[in-house]
């Protein structure tokens, strides 16, 4: 009756979240995990600084009306950067609307990441080029796509894995459950990374789940569940890297819960003061993931004023690029409305003609 060969206890998360660097930036021991190599740590730091700067720039752009909406991930950089840096060359990323920093870290050009959010095309990048699914709004739905894709890769004999981000709130959706289960039953190479930022818009975690931790869900599917300090980029990297390599090695999926916090409101359109207290935010401000990694790097001699400055410069450059590229209004060609509905657009010809007749009239009006 027991479907797994493992001792069930091994599927449970550890007593405390895995942590490799404490809040003051001091390395700590975590059984089974090692502090990533210096190069990785430096890269994590650099990506987080770039990510934070990108995020702040995007938020600023909403104020100027240049983005339709922006869900900030300020405070969640360690999760997004740490997990993405752990991806191998053949691995895929399946992001949500909140994972802009993850996508930027993954190599998708910032302006392509923001295409959706500025009200442009639904997906600003070619998923195959970057091995990244479209930013997904219907919650938890793309977890199933990730499972299907990862299973497909395995059927082809390729050792690619898929990393899919899910919010704490999204774990409540039926699709999350079905994705966890299909992956486990098929042994699909998927890592489900739950960014538990404590809130789903205005709903706090304790109205979302009574689980001891969200990582405790994993055992119900017969896969390992891990929880990790989601503001410790080194730990996120180490745990995700191992989960991904297990997946690639054919040992099946796992669930990683990163404990973090959404510092901003749900999106720029949301007003978080309606439902949460400032002191909670203040508390988490002290746990800033960038400060923590920077402290470690400084302490270990991996970062000095000059190299920190260089990263900051790079970040400013990135922000300036984003400003420049988003500074003008995006122009979409209305003809394209009909271009990608079906492989053969013929059945929409009549409607396209109707629109085409209107357009010159409008042009003249301008």
């Amino acid at each position, binding site marked *: 009756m027991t479907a797994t060969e493992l001792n069930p206890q091994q599927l449970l998360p550890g007593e405390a979240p895995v942590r490799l660097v404490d809040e003051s930036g001091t390395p700590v021991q975590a059984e089974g995990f090692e502090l990533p190599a210096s190069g990785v740590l430096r890269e994590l730091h650099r990506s987080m600084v770039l990510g934070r700067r990108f995020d702040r720039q995007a938020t600023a752009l909403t104020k100027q009306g240049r983005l339709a909406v922006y869900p900030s991930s300020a405070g969640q950089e360690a999760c997004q950067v740490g997990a993405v840096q752990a991806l191998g060359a053949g691995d895929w990323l399946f992001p949500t609307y909140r994972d802009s920093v993850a996508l930027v870290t993954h190599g998708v050009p910032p302006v392509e990441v923001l295409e959706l959010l500025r009200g442009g095309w639904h997906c600003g990048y070619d998923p195959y080029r970057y091995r990244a699914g479209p930013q997904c709004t219907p919650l938890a739905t793309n977890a199933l796509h990730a499972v299907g894709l990862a299973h497909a890769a395995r059927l082809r004999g390729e050792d690619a894995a898929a990393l899919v981000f899910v919010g704490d709130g999204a774990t409540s959706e039926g699709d999350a459950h079905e994705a966890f289960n299909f992956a486990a039953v098929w042994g699909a190479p998927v890592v489900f990374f739950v960014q538990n930022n404590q809130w789903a818009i205005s709903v706090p975690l304790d109205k979302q789940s009574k689980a001891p931790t969200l990582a405790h869900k994993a055992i119900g599917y017969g896969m390992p569940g891990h929880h990790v300090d989601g503001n410790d980029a080194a730990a996120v990297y180490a745990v995700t890297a191992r989960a991904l390599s297990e997946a690639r090695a054919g040992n099946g999926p796992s669930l990683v819960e990163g404990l973090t916090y959404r510092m901003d409101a749900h999106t720029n359109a949301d007003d978080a003061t309606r439902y949460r207290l400032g002191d909670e935010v203040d508390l988490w401000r002290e746990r800033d993931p960038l400060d923590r990694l920077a402290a470690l790097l400084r302490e270990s001699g991996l970062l000095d004023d000059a190299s920190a400055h260089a990263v900051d410069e790079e970040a400013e450059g990135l922000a300036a690029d984003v400003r420049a590229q988003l500074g003008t209004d995006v122009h979409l060609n209305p003809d394209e409305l009909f271009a990608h509905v079906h492989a053969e657009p013929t059945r929409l010809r009549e409607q396209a003609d109707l629109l085409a007749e*209107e357009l010159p009239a409008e042009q003249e009006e301008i």
Partner: protein
Amino acid sequence: MGQVTMAQALNTALRDSLRADPNVLVFGEDVGALGGVFRITEGLAAEFGEQRCFDSPLAEAGIVGTAVGMAMYGFRPVVEMQFDAFAYPAFEQITSHAAKLRNRTRGAVELPMVIRIPYGGGIGGVEHHSDSSEAYYTHTPGLTVVSPATPADAYSMLQEAITAADPVVFLEPKRRYWTKAEVELPAATEPMHRAVIRRAGTDVTLLAYGPMVATAMEAAEAARTEEGRDVEVVDLRSLSPLDEDTVCASVRKTGRAVIVHEAPVFGGYGAEVAATINRRCFHYLEAPVARVGGFDIPYPSPKLEEHHLPHTGRILDAIAELQWEEDR
């Protein structure tokens, strides 16, 4: 009360219903402390407490399915789907359960519940935030499907939906949430199932509902000033059942009809209206019933939605093509 937005009218209808009947419950995603992403439930949790207005876990089948259970037990749950496309995960619960339970139990189980869905586009929302899915619900026997177009109707129809014995899919035209009108609340308008003539006319009948009623009214005005046509505008209000008598009386009088909605035309609700008019008014029709709707494409990017959604120009074009005597 003076100037009232549709959002305020809906909020007041919920408040008054919660006050009037202890069996009324309001729940869904973010409807508690936040008051809903559109603030339709603002202040209700504070006034009526967490037992009567509360946040649920984030799962739409869960919301509708538990509402079914509560309604079985005598409550009148009013649930909110956050956006139209996010109601799809609840499709099974709506179609196979909410719609059918009275029938399945030969009337023993009654489900007085309301599923509120902010629907349609025009607010610059990114993908999956602007669908119009009325045709899925109107084709499902057992559901009542209504959509208000004005603040007064929003108040009156929501109240009536809450007191109805059967499940009601209550489609709220989100782009009209902030439209104001001079209304005294509580407002009592025509019964929910009745269509209403919003503007009398003799040349052509413009049929619309929800978000497109205001657009139809603008088009009617433009048709008068620009083309000298006298357009009658019918606000359907109830999509299922359809008030065929009011619709047919108007079309028999004018001899011409245009139905307008945001949803894609193919297989859309307008097809039912056109087919019904053709069946019941065939010998009165001077021209085929025209349908003006969204294109048969997934809802596009905000930057292009103006090209997708029906607008005055497109309605005027449809009217112009109705085979007028002078063109013959």
